[in-house]
């Protein structure tokens, strides 16, 4: 008796989320799939899903993949040293540094990109400083490098936070024990900290890889409209060409691709503990 009662209460508590999930996930997904599977003249068609293999779309897809992989890798490389440095601080300082670290995220995302545009433009702040120092100006504006800087800057906190949380959970005694047994700092990192941070790393990867794969605003602003990610193609189909079917078809292919790569990433999640997202 008691059990069913709590069950009911739980169901009741969950009901707003069920409405949420249906209204904002299931129905929109259904609409996207419906558009994706109908041709422009109506009627069932797989053409829009297959359109990803069109050379132009495929090229945009590969470029997106390149940006997303590069971004994820750079974020990982940048996150660990930061997390290790944070770990060495005491609690109060840790939260202060973390606070500073996430502070920019409270600022509008577009504003931050526009600031980067100012920094990287031909007569921008970076080139001003470089020429002042007697160095060659870097023509970074509107290049793939600028887009890469933009995505790394924007998504880095999403990598740092989960890794930091995973590392902060590690029992200090384990590290002490390893040190007692003669492990040096690097061995401690390689054999203890890194393996134990993998759940955090995996959710970091998901949170960085997926948005950088699907973004289009960053490449639009920092790429000067000269670089085309798959997100830009999808955006064009919806807003300019008014071909919602093709746009949806490409979105679905992108989604399938992301799901596949995520499955690949999480396959090695041996502990079964999984990341927060999966």
């Amino acid at each position, binding site marked *: 008796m008691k059990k069913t009662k709590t069950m009911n209460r739980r169901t009741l508590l969950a009901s707003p989320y069920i409405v949420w999930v249906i209204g904002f996930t299931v129905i929109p997904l259904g609409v996207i799939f419906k558009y994706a599977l109908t041709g422009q003249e109506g009627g069932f068609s797989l053409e829009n899903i297959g359109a990803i293999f069109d050379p132009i779309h495929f090229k945009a897809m590969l470029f997106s993949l390149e940006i997303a992989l590069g971004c994820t890798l750079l974020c990982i490389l940048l996150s660990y040293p930061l997390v290790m440095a944070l770990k060495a601080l005491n609690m109060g300082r840790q939260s202060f540094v973390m606070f500073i670290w996430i502070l920019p995220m409270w600022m509008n995302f577009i504003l931050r990109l526009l600031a980067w545009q100012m920094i990287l433009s031909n007569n921008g702040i970076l080139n001003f400083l470089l020429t002042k120092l007697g160095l060659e100006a870097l023509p970074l504006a509107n290049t793939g490098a600028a887009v890469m800087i933009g995505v790394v800057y924007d998504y880095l906190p999403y990598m740092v936070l989960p890794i930091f949380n995973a590392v902060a959970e590690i029992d200090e005694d384990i590290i002490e024990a390893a040190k007692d047994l003669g492990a040096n700092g690097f061995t401690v990192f390689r054999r203890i900290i890194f393996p134990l941070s993998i759940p955090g790393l995996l959710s970091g990867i998901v949170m960085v890889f997926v948005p950088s794969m699907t973004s*289009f605003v960053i490449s639009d602003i920092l790429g000067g409209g*000269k670089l085309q990610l798959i997100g830009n193609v999808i955006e064009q189909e919806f807003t300019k060409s008014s071909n919602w079917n093709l746009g949806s078809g490409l979105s679905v292919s992108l989604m399938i691709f992301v799901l596949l790569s995520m499955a690949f990433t999480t396959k090695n999640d041996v502990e079964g503990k999984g990341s927060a997202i999966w």
Partner: protein
Amino acid sequence: MKKMKKRIIRALLSGVLACSILCAAGCGQKSEGKESLTVFSYGEYMDPDVLEQFTEESGIEVKYEEALTPEEMYAKYKSGAIEYDLLCSTDYMLQKFINEGEFQKIDIDALENSKNIGDRYWELAKAFDPENEYTVPFFWGTLGILYDTSRVKEPVDSWEVLFNGEYAGEVIMQNSMRDTYMAALKYLGYSLNTNDENEIRKAQELLVKQKPDVQAYLVDEARDEVVAGNAVMAIVYSGEAYLGRQYNENLEYVVPKEGSNVWLDAWGVTKYCDNMEAARKFLDFLCREDMAKKNFEYIYYSTPNEAVINSLSDEERADETLVPPVDATENCEVCLQAEPEINDLMNELWKELKAD
């Protein structure tokens, strides 16, 4: 038109559309008793005071709905979530609305202030509204080259400067398909409304060849980049050029001799409007000199309202970005809806250009 300052927000378009479908029932209702109009236009395209004053004078409430681009406007309108009474859009999109029977005829002669709109503009409007019976001109302008005279040796008068490679890396094109093809087509001596596949492919060839020399394809930022000295020249709208010159006096604006696009935004009354009397009052109010002037001073695009033009100072009237002279628009054309196949082809080629 094309006040696309926050064009990024288009990212949210799909979300907004979803929401507007959800709230369809609620928003579509007209408030009872009180007269009201739902008008649909571009964001920041009208001085808010004008709307307030209209309500004050006529007692008719105005709900102002906005979109950023003609395409977005079309999508929102067609979704049917909101029944708009009046709509202000751009030439080729108005043509589409008219052809699809979305507009009601307006008795233009009954609008007392419609005589303020010069003949020249009614003529222009005939490109999409041949009998001048569906639309009332609101703003207009040209598309041309804004350039930095301190970094360009000879005066610019042709689209050629964009394509001859002399200013490689210093040229900014419009990140809008029709506008960019327009420049190439006009330079090659074709109509910007061509339905000839070969002409479009030739334009494509030219644009592909030009791409390495292009610094960026931008919309609103195009002007700012020239103002800031990051680029030597850009394709911009005349209204943008006017504002650019307020910040940097070295800038000059020209409508190339080969001709260009002349755009015209106008108001139409949709088929959903069941209070034509109120709609007419609204349109007449917009044509009134003081209100047209207010709107003009709010965004500084060229006004078709001759009463306003006459009230300008001599200096302002001589400014080609504010009042494009007749001879500058001689070779210009209004952009019209392309044939569906041509439109598809252009979309495809545009993607190809961007992917190159």
